[in-house]
């Protein structure tokens, strides 16, 4: 089956100021319904790249297309219908007097009817398990809940593409796991998910494709499984694959596959190996 790209970039260059470009010739196709992880060192261009997808930044040179339409001439408010962007820090978007008001802000900006705004808000509150906090000011909630509110507020706009910038930073293990379960569910529902993270275990566990950026260029792009096998190339970008992947690689002589991404996969492979030997 030929899957059409929902986002395509060609020769994308971006400079914040005259001088060295933050993005230096990015050619990329992101298929629809992808679950893409973007990794790279600080300053490698991850956030700069995704800000082009919803039009917050316009290319200095080259072009970006979202569903076949160039972003350069489209306002952010129009692109926001298609591309939802959850910022790294929830406090950069929270302003509502109540969580309900905060979540309804985006749908209301889309010009929907009051009934539709209400329906989407209630659905988002339920999907993210935020009903108990609906009438509380989101600014006083704990960080994990504020993060949830910020994702729910973008989810309520129902964009087919959802970008999450470091969604689990500052969250404890349980909150991170809950949030990522919700993101997985959104992907299963058909959303295209783009995830920026420095947590390699998270990327390995959840994403299907991975893009590695280094100094504004694409270093690697492919399935997450393939990318995390390129240990030497990853080293160029100072990236270390998840420990379980490294362990499997070192035990390759014993017959373990080198493309293991999670502990569960490692255990399965080990059990298969044990059964085969018995």
């Amino acid at each position, binding site marked *: 089956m030929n899957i059409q790209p929902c986002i395509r970039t060609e020769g994308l260059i971006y400079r914040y100021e005259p001088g060295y470009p933050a993005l230096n010739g990015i050619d990329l196709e992101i298929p629809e319904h992808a679950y893409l992880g973007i990794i790279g060192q600080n300053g490698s261009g991850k956030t700069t790249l995704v800000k082009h997808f919803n039009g917050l930044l316009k290319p200095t040179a080259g072009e970006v297309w979202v569903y076949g339409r160039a972003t350069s001439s489209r306002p952010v408010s129009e692109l926001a219908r298609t591309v939802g962007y959850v910022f790294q820090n929830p406090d950069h*978007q929270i302003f509502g007097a109540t969580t309900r008001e905060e979540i309804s802000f985006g749908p209301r*900006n*889309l010009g929907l009817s009051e009934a539709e705004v209400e329906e989407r808000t209630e659905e988002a509150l339920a999907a993210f398990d935020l009903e108990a906090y609906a009438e509380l000011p989101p600014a006083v909630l704990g960080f994990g809940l504020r993060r949830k509110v910020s994702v729910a507020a973008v989810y309520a706009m129902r964009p087919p593409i959802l970008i999450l910038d470091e969604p689990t930073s500052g969250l404890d293990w349980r909150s991170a796991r809950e949030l990522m379960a919700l993101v997985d569910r959104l992907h299963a529902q058909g959303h295209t998910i783009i995830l920026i993270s420095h947590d390699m275990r998270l990327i390995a566990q959840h994403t299907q494709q991975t893009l590695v950026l280094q100094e504004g260029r694409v270093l690697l792009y492919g399935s997450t499984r393939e990318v995390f096998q390129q240990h030497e190339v990853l080293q160029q970008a100072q990236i270390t694959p998840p420990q379980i992947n490294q362990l499997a690689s070192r035990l390759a002589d014993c017959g373990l596959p080198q493309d293991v991404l999670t502990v569960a996969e490692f255990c399965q492979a080990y059990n298969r190996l044990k059964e085969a030997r018995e």
Partner: protein
Amino acid sequence: MSLLYDLYQPGDSWLHRLDPRVKFIFVLCASLLLLLMRSLWVMLIALVGAQLILLSGGISWRRIGWVWRMTLPTMVLIAVLWVIFYPGEGQALLSWRFLRITPYNIAEGLAVALRIGALAFILFIWLFSTSQSALIRGLVALGLPYTWGLTLAMALRYLPTMAGIFQLISDAQRARALELDQGNPLRRARAHLPIVVAMLITALRTAQNLSLALASRAFGAQRKRTHLHPLHFRPLDGLLLAGILLATAALLWARLALGLGQEPL
């Protein structure tokens, strides 16, 4: 990033070596004179002079350009509104209903606008060439309580940071389809409300975290503070200070007794 995140530009120019107290007194004297005078030519000389001081002090064009970008929109707005709402004296160049444009009110509007620019640049002479610690030491040496000095220095230090956060918050709200440049001025002003409220929440949270961080690093434990690098008032600093005070006194006398710079033209 397009914004400056630290106002101070490290360097070793004559401006950097100047005692921070002298620079602060210069800012006060120059500001007083600019507020007392109304002449377009005085404002122009002050603005050009401030640029020359910054350049000779090794301050980069990037920083100077940043101040221009910050002040120019306000300067243009003031010049235009002044001409519209303050009918001038003398022969009118254009007269229509309440609008009466004369060379006098054009010059007056330009002088007020240039005064804003000159005041900003004079303040930035001090801020661009003085590190935060030197700035506090200077103010404390002039008699300001240390906590007040630190508060002021931190407020100034956080100006560019807050400008960066403002940009981030604007982007976050625009990403939720908020249109900032649509409709009449009232609607545009109201559209900024989500940004202003989020900004206030972030500012309060930052202030709280900062106060806790200061307290946890034993701020206020010692009533009398010592300094690692005490200020040294050199003979050259004394000479420049005397020059600044003499020039200010002379210009004040000329303004009050002779009416120098009293009229826009």
